[in-house]
C-alpha cells in the first residue's frame, strides 16, 4: 500500500522535527543515535498497533487555522459571559441539559465538534450518540440551537469531507 508508506514517511519526518525542536541541540551531536533509536521504535510500534492511518498523521491544513481563529474568538466571548455570571453579586442561572442533532459522519469532524462545544465555557458535551450530542449548559442563554448550528456549519467547512 503506497498510502501506508506515505503516512510512515510523514510520521518519521514529523517525529524527527519534533525531536530536533524539543531537544534544542539540532541534528548534529552524539545523542542523535538515541533519537534515531526512539523514532524507529515509535514508528514500529505505531505500525504494529495498527494506528498508522490518516488520523495518526498530524497533517496541516490552512482551513483548520481559520477555524481555530474563529473558535478562539467564540471562546473569549463565552469566557467573558461565564465570568460575568460567576462574579455577579447574585448568581441567577437556569442550568439545562439539551440534545442537539449532529449530521456529521466523519470521526475527526465529530470529535472536533464535541471538543469545540466543550472548549467554549458554558456548554459541555456530556454524551455522544449516533445522531446527536447531549450537552449541559450553565444557563439557557448558552444553549440556543441556532448557535449550535453555526458551530456545526463551521466544522463542516473546516474538515471538508466530514459531511454527506
Amino acid at each position, binding site marked *: 500500500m503506497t498510502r501506508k508508506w506515505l503516512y510512515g514517511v510523514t510520521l518519521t519526518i514529523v517525529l524527527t522535527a519534533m525531536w530536533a*525542536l524539543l531537544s534544542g541541540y539540532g541534528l548534529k551531536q552524539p545523542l542523535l543515535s538515541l533519537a534515531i533509536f526512539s523514532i524507529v521504535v515509535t514508528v514500529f510500534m505505531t505500525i504494529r498497533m495498527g494506528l498508522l492511518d490518516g488520523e495518526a498523521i498530524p497533517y496541516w491544513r490552512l482551513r483548520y487555522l481559520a477555524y481555530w481563529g474563529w473558535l478562539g474568538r467564540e471562546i473569549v466571548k463565552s469566557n467573558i459571559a461565564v465570568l460575568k455570571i*460567576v462574579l455577579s453579586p447574585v448568581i441567577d442561572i437556569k*442550568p*439545562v441539559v439539551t440534545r442537539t442533532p449532529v449530521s456529521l459522519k466523519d470521526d475527526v469532524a465529530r470529535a472536533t465538534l464535541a*471538543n469545540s462545544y466543550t472548549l467554549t465555557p458554558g456548554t459541555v458535551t456530556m454524551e455522544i450518540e449516533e445522531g446527536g450530542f447531549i450537552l449541559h449548559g*450553565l444557563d439557557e442563554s448558552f444553549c440556543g440551537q441556532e448557535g449550535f448550528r453555526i458551530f456545526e456549519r463551521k466544522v463542516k467547512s473546516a474538515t471538508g469531507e466530514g459531511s454527506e
Partner: protein
Amino acid sequence: MDWMGLVQLAVILVSAALMLTGAGIILAGAVGVIRLPDFYTRMHAAGVTDTLGAEIIILGLILQAGFTLVSVKLALLGLIIFLTSPTSTHAVANAAYRSGLKPILRRWRSDENRGDAA
C-alpha cells in the same frame, strides 16, 4: 532611551499585563467553582481557568521569551492544553452523567438557596 529600549519596555509591560490578566481570570474561575451550586455548573467555571486563563499566561510568557526555542516549546504547550483540556472535561462530565448524577435543572439564585449546594 533609544528605540530598542522603548520596544523592550513595551514588550515587558504588555506581557506583564497579559500574565496578570491570566492570573485574575484563574482566580475568578476558582471563585466560580466555590460559588456555583452543583458538579456540572462548577465544571463550567473550571473550564474558564484552563481555556482563557492558561492560554493568556502562556501568551505573556511567549512575549517574555522572544524569538527563542523556549517560545516554540511554550506554543506547543499551549496547543497541547488547547487539545487535551476539552477531552478531560468531557471524560469527567461523561463519567458523572453515566453514573447517574442528576444535574440541577431549575432556576437557581445564589441568594435564595443557601445550603443546598449538594
